[in-house]
Structures are given as structure tokens and as C-alpha cells.
């Protein structure tokens, strides 16, 4: 497995003048190509900071962030912008779709900014809409869609430029439970097809159900890094229902 994301002694301190605890504190970790990794941790543990650094939306105060062979700290703003368009797709909790554009226009937007060939881009958009089961919504506007549908559109938009890395920050946080499960199943399906996924969530059930690895951050540090075992069938005796004995 080749390494796609690597953080080496990464510290991020926000300049709030308070001189408080760093949001990330000397974090080192590597994520392989094709992995589905969930980042968990309580509020303020540094999850979103980590995601923003990997996305090139922010720069580390110290240490090195490398994604797809690019040392993000060394890139100029222009090259960083290009990196964000081609190497990462970002899915947000609140979808962040543009309300005055149709579904298809929203999905196509990153490709237009990336100056892809129109014919190929059109085919890719069609393929994604079909893959995410929203072909029938292509001409609708986001305001007319349910949360679950909007998040599917956001995933299609994130993947239009075929980025090697999909980042998702609480992608099910603003949708109902059932839609949330569907969204996660879609993301897991994309991962099975080879998409590397880095997911931030506070939901242990979703994280363990769909990801192969869970990294837990506490106070800006890696507290735990668990890769799940999937050897052999799970015994039904994992759950024992206790039937109290008759006393008399």
C-alpha cells in the first residue's frame, strides 16, 4: 500500500492571542492509498483542523503535511489552489451547494475551474449522477432537495475531478438517520472501488461500521489508532441474553 497522506510532527496553533493549547500537537500519521480512515474525538480535539490541513485549506504552524507526494507547506497559494481542485474532494456537513445553480451545474463547477475537456467532464458528471442515484435530479435546484439528496450532489461534486483523496467532515451530521446510513453506504462503496476516504465523525457506530481504521484524537494528539480485524466470521455468542433462573 503506497502512502497517500503523511503528517510528520504537525502542530497547528491558532493565533488567538491567548497562547492556548495547540489545536494539533506534534501529530504524526500516515494513510495508505485505498484506506477508509475515520477520525474521531470530542469537540475541540483537532479533527477538523487535521482535515483542513490535509485539504490544503490551512497550513501547519510546524511540521510537514504531504498529500499525493506534494509537501503542502512548500506550495505557493496558486499551486495550493490547483492542488485542492485536483487532488482532494471535500464533503461538508451542510453540503455547501450553490443555490442559484442546478444540481448538474453544481457538480460541474469544480471541473470548469479545473479546465477539464467539456466532453469528458460531461460524461464524468453523468456517470457520477448515475452512481449516486440522482440522475433524475440534474436540473433541479438544491433548495428543492432533501438533505440526503443534497449530500449526494455534494459527493458527486467532490469527485468530478477524480481526486485520489475524498475528505468528509461529518457528512451525515445534517441528515436523518436513514439518509445518513445511505450516504455512508455510498461512501463505503466508493472506497471499495478504490477511493481513499478520510472521514471526520463523532459517531462511533458509523465510524466502526464503515471504516477499516479509526484514529482517535484527544486534545490535539493521537490517542488511539485502531485497525479492525476482519478475519473469520463473527460468533453469534458475541451477545449473550441472560435468562434469570427460576428461584422457586
Amino acid at each position, binding site marked *: 500500500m503506497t502512502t497517500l497522506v503523511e503528517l510528520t510532527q504537525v502542530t497547528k496553533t491558532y493565533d488567538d492571542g491567548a497562547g492556548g493549547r495547540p489545536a494539533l500537537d506534534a501529530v504524526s500519521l500516515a494513510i495508505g492509498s485505498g484506506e477508509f480512515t475515520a477520525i474521531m474525538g470530542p469537540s475541540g480535539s483537532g479533527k477538523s483542523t487535521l482535515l483542513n490541513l490535509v485539504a490544503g485549506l490551512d497550513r501547519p504552524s510546524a511540521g510537514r503535511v504531504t498529500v499525493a507526494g506534494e509537501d503542502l507547506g512548500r506550495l505557493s497559494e496558486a499551486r495550493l489552489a490547483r492542488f485542492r481542485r485536483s487532488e482532494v474532494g471535500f464533503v461538508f456537513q451542510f453540503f455547501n451547494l450553490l443555490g442559484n445553480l442546478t444540481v448538474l451545474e453544481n457538480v460541474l463547477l469544480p471541473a470548469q475551474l479545473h479546465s477539464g475537456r467539456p466532453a469528458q467532464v460531461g460524461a464524468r458528471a453523468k456517470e457520477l449522477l448515475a452512481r449516486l442515484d440522482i440522475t433524475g435530479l440534474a436540473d433541479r435546484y438544491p433548495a428543492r432537495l432533501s438533505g440526503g439528496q443534497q449530500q449526494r450532489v455534494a459527493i458527486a461534486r467532490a469527485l468530478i475531478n477524480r481526486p485520489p483523496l475524498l475528505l468528509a467532515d461529518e457528512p451525515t451530521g445534517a441528515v436523518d438517520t436513514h439518509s445518513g446510513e445511505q450516504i455512508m453506504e455510498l461512501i463505503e462503496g466508493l472506497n471499495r472501488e478504490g477511493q481513499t476516504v478520510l472521514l471526520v465523525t463523532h459517531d462511533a457506530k458509523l465510524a466502526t461500521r464503515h471504516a477499516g481504521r479509526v484514529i482517535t484524537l484527544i486534545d490535539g494528539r493521537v490517542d488511539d489508532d485502531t485497525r479492525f480485524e476482519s478475519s473469520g466470521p463473527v460468533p*453469534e455468542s458475541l451477545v449473550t441474553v441472560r435468562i434469570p433462573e427460576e428461584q422457586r
Partner: protein
Amino acid sequence: MSLKFGILGLLAEQPLHAYSVKARFEDLLGGSWEVNIGQVSTTLQRLERDRLVEPAAARGERGRLPYRLTEEGRKALDAWLTEPESEPQQLREAIYLKLLLAARVANGDLPSLLARQRRVYLQRLKDLAVLEQKAKSAGRDDLVLLYKGAVLHTEADLKWVDVCAQEIRTGSDRR
């Protein structure tokens, strides 16, 4: 007391002898519980003594006696099914005892115990998802509910471990 009512519930569907009761019980709980045949026989005898069940026919093959529910048994079952359960909370897992002892015994390393316990709970959540999916595919919606219950309990255990770890961290910050 649940074995008694478990048997009454199975007999409410059809008359059964002790061995069928055992087999049906195990199937009902999806293999998550193995019941002792002696326990079932004794309970059936007590139920007969209390007139909640009665023989449904003469002894059959290998002397097996089928039982059915009496009117009184039906009433007792109906009453039990509508009653909520208010047994005291039972924290039965050894981790609770370990937690108490590790905090007192010298060299008891509580943070690393909690971290390892957390991994166990994460793996359990993953495994329960597999069982839930298996039950769903098998059309066993009742077992799906059982596993959902187990998932929620494990989520609570996981939160509890996090709370313990948090308390220990803030405790050592204060010192």
C-alpha cells in the same frame, strides 16, 4: 423469572415438550444463549404445579410429554408482557471491578487499561454490525432489534470509557 415466562410465551404458540422448548428458545435468541435441558424440565414441572401449564397429550416418543398453556398461564403471560422491567441495573462486566481496583492498586495503569478497553468496544461495534446485517439478510427482524440494543449498550460503554479517561486527565491537570 424470565425463563418461566419465556416458556409460557413459546407454549402460547403451540404445545411443546421440553426438548422442543429448548430448541425453540435457542432459535428465538439466534444462538446467543444455550439453555440447559434440566433447567427447562424443572421449570416446566413447576409451571405444571402452579397450574400455568398442563399436559397436552399422553407421553409420546421416548416418554416425552407435551405441555400446553392453561387459561391461568395465558393470563399470567399477558400480564407479564405488558409490565415494564424494573430490575436493578446490573454492571456485570469485569471492567467495572478492574476500574475500581486499578485506581487503588499500586502500578494499576488506568489510562492504558481504558485505551485498550476502548479498542475492544470499537471492534465490538464493528462485529455487531456484521451480526445485525446477517440477521437482516436472514429476515430475522426480531434479532436485528436485539443487536441494535447491543450496539446502543456498546456505544454507552464507549462513552463511559471516554468519560473516565477525561476525568483522569482533568484530575491530573488539577494536581
